[in-house]
């Protein structure tokens, strides 16, 4: 019963859940096809992306409704059960390394390289909401506050964030509200996993993303966050101007600006940020069990991408695998299995927005040129402010690749309402012509060696 319930409480598009699923399947020699829950099929993807745009947008909304927990079940949400679900995705071990903490699409490849399961600090539970308007953040906060408080009370070891982003998440927000659960204590499931399924003297690697966001406290351990990392800056969410007015007009919204509630504090970002309170429990457990504890600290989730890409180049060179093929992945459309099978260097885009574009551009400008660059894009269901069209991405990679550049796994006619995108990316990776055996995992000490030998400079990443 609890197994089924926990499975119903995880959201298929959540970054943490996709890290867990991708790694769980990677350790079993499987790919992250269809986000590990659906089919990976170009035919089905084509079929899904063939209806007219309005129908496809409705498809996004209907899909969100299916992901969301009905309000009467919110009282049953038990983070302990979700954590049991997480630990069930991995084998019996023993594991030499485990990763715990903030989600990161670059981090998923580092964890795969380390052969390390990932225990997320934050997971998303979507709840149904057909009543509030995306452009009425105060109304949404007030309507969902009783639910956020209820869930926080039932789960004393977590902070609950009601995250409300009417830009990037607009399509899904027609049907659901985002509740993110950030663990402040080690749950029994995580504790059991760390005590029983790690090898003696194993290393715990803690991902610590220091990104914070202004929030409004709506209860004990319950917060409302307006906006999230993407194409709109934190300041613009809270003081929206001409660009947002145009966007709202294009979306047929009755409003021309956002009027979010007054905030009263800053907290770790709802989706990506690391809450240090959990670190105390991890440190105590590591001391008690004789595990090593290493910290990978980064300012923004995207900051880990160049670091992880360069680490893979260094590692591939050690393995005599060509290190001049780059695969750019976007949001949760990552696949550690195919990255290693293809022998491509992974570079993760947090989203298909201007800041991620700039990060990729800066990386390609400073990195040793790649011969081949492949790029895949996640379809968010609409072109929100800061959205970068496919052509611009293509121009960027074509200008930087020495031999070949290609956008793969994207139906460019349907994009960004490419309903079949999640079914298409993995077959597109599989179709690339290279093959290599999956290498043996590296150890945490290899990261020290990499940093010692690397010419790269990573001022926004700390490894200690």
């Amino acid at each position, binding site marked *: 019963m609890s197994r089924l319930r926990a499975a119903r409480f995880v959201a298929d598009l959540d970054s943490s859940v996709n890290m867990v699923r991708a790694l769980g399947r990677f350790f079993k020699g499987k790919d992250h096809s269809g986000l590990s829950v659906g089919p990976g099929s170009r035919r089905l993807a084509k079929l899904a992306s063939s209806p007219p745009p309005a129908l496809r947008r409705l498809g996004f909304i209907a899909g969100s409704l299916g992901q969301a927990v*009905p*309000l*009467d079940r*919110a*009282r049953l949400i038990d983070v302990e059960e979700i954590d049991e679900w997480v630990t069930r995705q991995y084998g019996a071990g023993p594991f030499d390394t485990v990763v715990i903490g903030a989600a990161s699409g670059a981090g998923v490849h580092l964890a795969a390289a380390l052969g390390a399961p990932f225990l997320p600090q934050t997971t998303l539970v979507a*709840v*149904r*909401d*057909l*009543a*509030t308007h995306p452009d009425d953040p105060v*109304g949404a906060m*007030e*309507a*969902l*506050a*009783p*639910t956020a408080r*209820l869930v926080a009370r039932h789960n004393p070891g977590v902070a609950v964030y009601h995250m409300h982003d009417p830009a990037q998440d607009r399509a899904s927000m027609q049907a659901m*509200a985002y509740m993110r659960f950030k663990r402040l204590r080690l749950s029994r499931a995580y504790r059991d996993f760390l005590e029983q399924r790690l090898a003696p003297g194993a290393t715990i690697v803690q991902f610590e993303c220091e990104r914070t966001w202004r929030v409004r406290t709506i209860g004990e351990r319950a917060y409302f966050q307006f906006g999230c990392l993407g194409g709109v800056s934190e300041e613009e969410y809270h003081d929206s101007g001409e660009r947002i007015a145009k966007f709202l007009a294009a979306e047929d919204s009755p409003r021309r600006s956002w009027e979010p509630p007054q905030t009263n504090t800053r907290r770790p970002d709802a989706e990506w940020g690391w809450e240090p309170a959990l670190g105390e429990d991890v440190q105590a457990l590591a001391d008690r069990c004789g595990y090593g504890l290493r910290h990978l600290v980064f300012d923004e989730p995207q900051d880990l991408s160049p670091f992880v890409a360069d680490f893979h180049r260094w590692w591939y060179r050690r393995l005599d695998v060509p290190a001049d093929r780059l695969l750019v992945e976007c949001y949760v459309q990552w696949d550690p299995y195919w990255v290693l099978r293809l022998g491509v260097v992974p570079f993760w885009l947090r989203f298909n927005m201007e800041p991620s574009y700039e990060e990729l551009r800066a990386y390609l400008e400073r990195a040793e040129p790649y011969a081949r660059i492949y790029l895949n894009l996640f379809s968010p269901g609409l072109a929100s402010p800061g959205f970068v069209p496919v052509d611009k991405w293509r121009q960027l990679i074509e200008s930087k690749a020495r031999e070949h550049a290609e956008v793969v796994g994207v139906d460019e006619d349907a994009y960004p309402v490419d309903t079949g995108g999640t079914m298409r990316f993995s077959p597109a990776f599989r179709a690339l012509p290279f093959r290599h055996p999956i290498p043996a995992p590296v150890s945490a000490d290899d990261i020290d060696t990499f940093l010692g030998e690397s010419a790269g400079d990573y001022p926004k990443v700390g490894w200690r």
Partner: protein
Amino acid sequence: MRVKDSVVVVTGASSGIGRATALAFAKRGSAVVVAARRQQALDEVARQCESAGGRALAVATDVSEFKAVDELARRAVERFGRIDVWVNDAAVTLFSPFLEAPLEDFRRVLEVNVMGYVHGAKAALPYMKDQGKGVIVNVSSVVGVVPQPYTHAYSMTKAAVKVLSESLRQELMLEGSRSRNIKVASVLPATIDTPFFNHAANYTGREVKAMPPVYTPERVARAIVNLVRVPRREVVVGPMGRNLVLQAKLTPGLAGRAMAIQVDKAHLSRTKPAPATEGNLYVPAPGAGSLHGEWNGRRRTALRRGLSAAAAVGGTVAAVRRRRQTALRRGLPATAAVGGTVAALRRRRR
């Protein structure tokens, strides 16, 4: 009791059942004294009552204060000379998980729904005893028999109202001939299409909906008028309410479980979150009030009746056809089948 020319006091008359009751009495020629907290709404109800042919007096009253209720009774007698019928209908409600319900809100529901009725009976009875006759109608609810989760306070008060009616009735019986013609009755409506649910205090985080099946407030008003004509101890309004009350007597555990599931799935929205609100507990909802809510009680009732009639007709046709086929197989004339059905029905009636 004769309804025409009787003097009727109705509390909670600004909307819903109270308003429908006031109008029903006015249509039948009663003098109506309408009471609630909202003067604007009361004035509108009084105007409608006068348009319907009755005489009306609007007295803004908070039933949780005995002085105000006593003053209401005094003004009714001052204006119309007596009180024949007193309908206690003013009520508020609170939806909340038990531990989340603010104590003061819980207490307020008890104050209005129980003490408001006590105040009404205490204010009306002296006049009725002087007159030697009268009817007190206490509007309870089926949730007074089968309580609901999340409306502990409201369910408690509706059970209390039933008990108050019974207790008063017994006391009046013991008083003998002096009070023989003073009757006390309880009305137990099922879900009624009124604005009541929109005005509820709510801490569940979910929108409150009327739990189907929904009946019209006019139906309750008719039941109250009929109670005055022919007093009875208790009347349940709505077939589903009657089924529920019967089920509670036969299988109380099952009835409770069914009610809990029904409330969770159909009384509170599963898709529409709602902010915490104290509703109209302390401040009445603004505006002129209304008779109906947004739950389409009339349309739903018509639809239910239509479907029931269709099912009855369909069943009869099927039964007749089956008999006819049986008769044909036996070599009897086809008309014998219909004759046989009619004869069978007659036998059953006897």
